[in-house]
């Protein structure tokens, strides 16, 4: 089977899942208490004005009809209009997704570059105080609610010390968004050669991504340690040592690359978990991502927005799994044949 066929098969496999998500989300949003029409009718609404808005939103129709209408809209690429931000959901998501992705990816980058060395170190020095310390540190990171860590960091680094910029989203007020290329502000402003904008975007990014990174250290470090231990105890490692290979080569080429396989899987899970978890961080840092969008939408029963959000996350999840599979295939030759 060609790799294209493989990808196609994966995508096809995701179709039932996606449909399930569409159904569950639809039902969940309709189960939300409250009538969005009443909410959006405004301060001095009368029953008639609420009924009018209800008709505009289409929520006066029976559920199956609403669902069919929703599916039709989906089919034509229309995700509806968010009532809470007043924007088409699709464009809203397109605008916000890069913000969330930039935050999540930066957080993961930080997390991976700390957690993997820590995990390796803990495995190599198994059961020593270094191991215990690593375990302590990463566990402490995952033991605090993200919003609390975030607020604490803001308090210390912005309010008290003044080192970090105000937690105001992706750019401070001095800078203008660079022309969008990737949607990642740091990269875009580098492309546009606007160094100070890049620097500003980076500064804004730092605290929230550290907050998230602290939270994701534990699973990655844990898995790295566990799979490193397994690799270190393996027979091929003994062969490598018996062949006199240098300890760094044994560690990196033989143990680490093998240990990476489960870590990649964990990374995928952590990534999707982080995308979900950063709703709180986005709220704390006024980050204009899809997470904060989703919270607002959920609280005001903004059906279209919630549905669009969940759907886009699900699609992202499917894509992510594809990427993980691809990565896996790159690392592990065995998968290529099994297909």
């Amino acid at each position, binding site marked *: 089977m060609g790799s294209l066929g493989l990808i196609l098969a994966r995508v096809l496999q995701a179709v039932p899942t996606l449909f399930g998500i569409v159904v569950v989300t639809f039902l969940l949003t309709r189960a939300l*208490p409250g009538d969005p029409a009443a909410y959006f009718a405004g301060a001095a609404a009368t029953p008639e004005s609420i009924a009018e808005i209800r008709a505009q939103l289409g929520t006066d129709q029976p559920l199956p009809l609403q669902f069919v209408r929703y599916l039709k809209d989906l089919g034509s690429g229309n995700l509806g209009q968010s009532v809470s931000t007043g924007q088409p959901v699709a464009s809203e998501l397109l605008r916000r997704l890069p913000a969330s992705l930039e935050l999540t990816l930066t957080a993961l980058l930080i997390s991976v570059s700390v957690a993997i060395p820590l995990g390796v170190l803990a495995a190599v020095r198994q059961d020593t105080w270094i191991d215990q310390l690593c375990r302590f540190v990463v566990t*402490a990171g995952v033991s605090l609610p993200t919003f609390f860590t975030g607020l604490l960091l803001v308090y210390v680094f912005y309010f008290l010390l003044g080192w970090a910029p105000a937690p105001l989203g992706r750019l401070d007020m001095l800078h203008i968004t660079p022309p969008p290329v990737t949607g990642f502000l740091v990269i875009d402003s580098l492309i546009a050669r606007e160094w100070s904008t890049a620097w500003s975007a980076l500064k804004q990014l730092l605290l929230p991504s550290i907050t998230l990174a602290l939270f994701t250290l534990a699973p990655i470090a844990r898995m790295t340690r566990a799979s490193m231990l397994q690799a270190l105890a393996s027979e091929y490692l003994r062969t490598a040592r018996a062949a006199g290979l240098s300890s760094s080569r044994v560690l990196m080429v033989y143990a680490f690359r093998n240990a990476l396989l489960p870590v990649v899987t964990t990374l995928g899970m952590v990534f999707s978990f982080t995308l979900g978890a950063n709703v709180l961080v986005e709220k704390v840092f006024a980050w204009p991502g899809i997470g904060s969008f989703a919270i607002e939408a959920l609280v005001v029963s903004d059906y279209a927005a919630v549905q669009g*959000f*969940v759907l886009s996350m699900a699609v992202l*999840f499917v894509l992510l799994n594809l990427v993980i599979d691809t990565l896996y295939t790159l690392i592990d030759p065995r998968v290529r044949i099994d297909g």
Partner: protein
Amino acid sequence: MTDITINTITAAPRSSAWSRGFAHFRYVMTSNPVTLLAFVMLAAMILIAVFGPALVPHDPLATAADKALKPPSLQHWFGTDQLGRDVFSRVIVATRLDLLISVSAVALSFFVGVAMGACAGYWGGWFDKLSGRLLDTIMAFPLFVLAMGIVAAAGNTIQNIVIATAIINLPFYARVARAEVSIRRNAGYVQAARLSGNSELRILIEKILPNTLPPMMVQLSLNMGWAILNAAGLSFIGLGVRPPTAEWGIMVAEGANFIVSGEWWLALFPGAALMLAVFTFNLLGDGLRDLVDPQRRT
């Protein structure tokens, strides 16, 4: 190295199951100081949960106009909150509820998830496919948002928070259970059990499931901590436990707004309690696994 241990074992005298169990517990505890620490903290937490409410110095719900927002003092060790309630008493009393939330949420998802995963892993077939799809669907949701949605839709009662937390944890157990069962479903001792005339259901429940426990234990303890964090997150966006109930998450969430104005004790102490609890649960995993693993016994 097995035979070395065997040699020493054969020399060991027979002793009662109890004392052997205790010896094993002692071994697990002493072999790893972190595990010992975790178990000590767990024991302390359970004690606090059981006896705390009877011992607290102040009524955790009693307000006092003249004592609002006082910093920690001899009378109020952790200070007082906006309504003059004693933060120390509230932190102590909250222990029971938080343990209850995490334990029941995890227990719920553990039992349902394991049952689902075990059936899927053992019999495969349409049930496996169906449950796999269901779990994929849950997993493809951003989990925290799913929990938010469920609580928002069903109302923010403790019961619903528990259910929402259980649902988002479900896939982890189901997947681990499925994997662990399916690698064992044709193991030698399972075949032997078939030859011994055990029904398939009995084999699954009596022979296979107990053996899948050790890897589950790690997941279990991680999720207990996560359940508390999840409840705290829900509180932060206003979907948590209802006031005036004392709960760490909601106290942190509310106290967080007071940090900038200098009333640090409101968030710090419940935050520390919450962190200690989650920390304990997270560290507990390896110890629990060692405890339930018969291979680790002598």
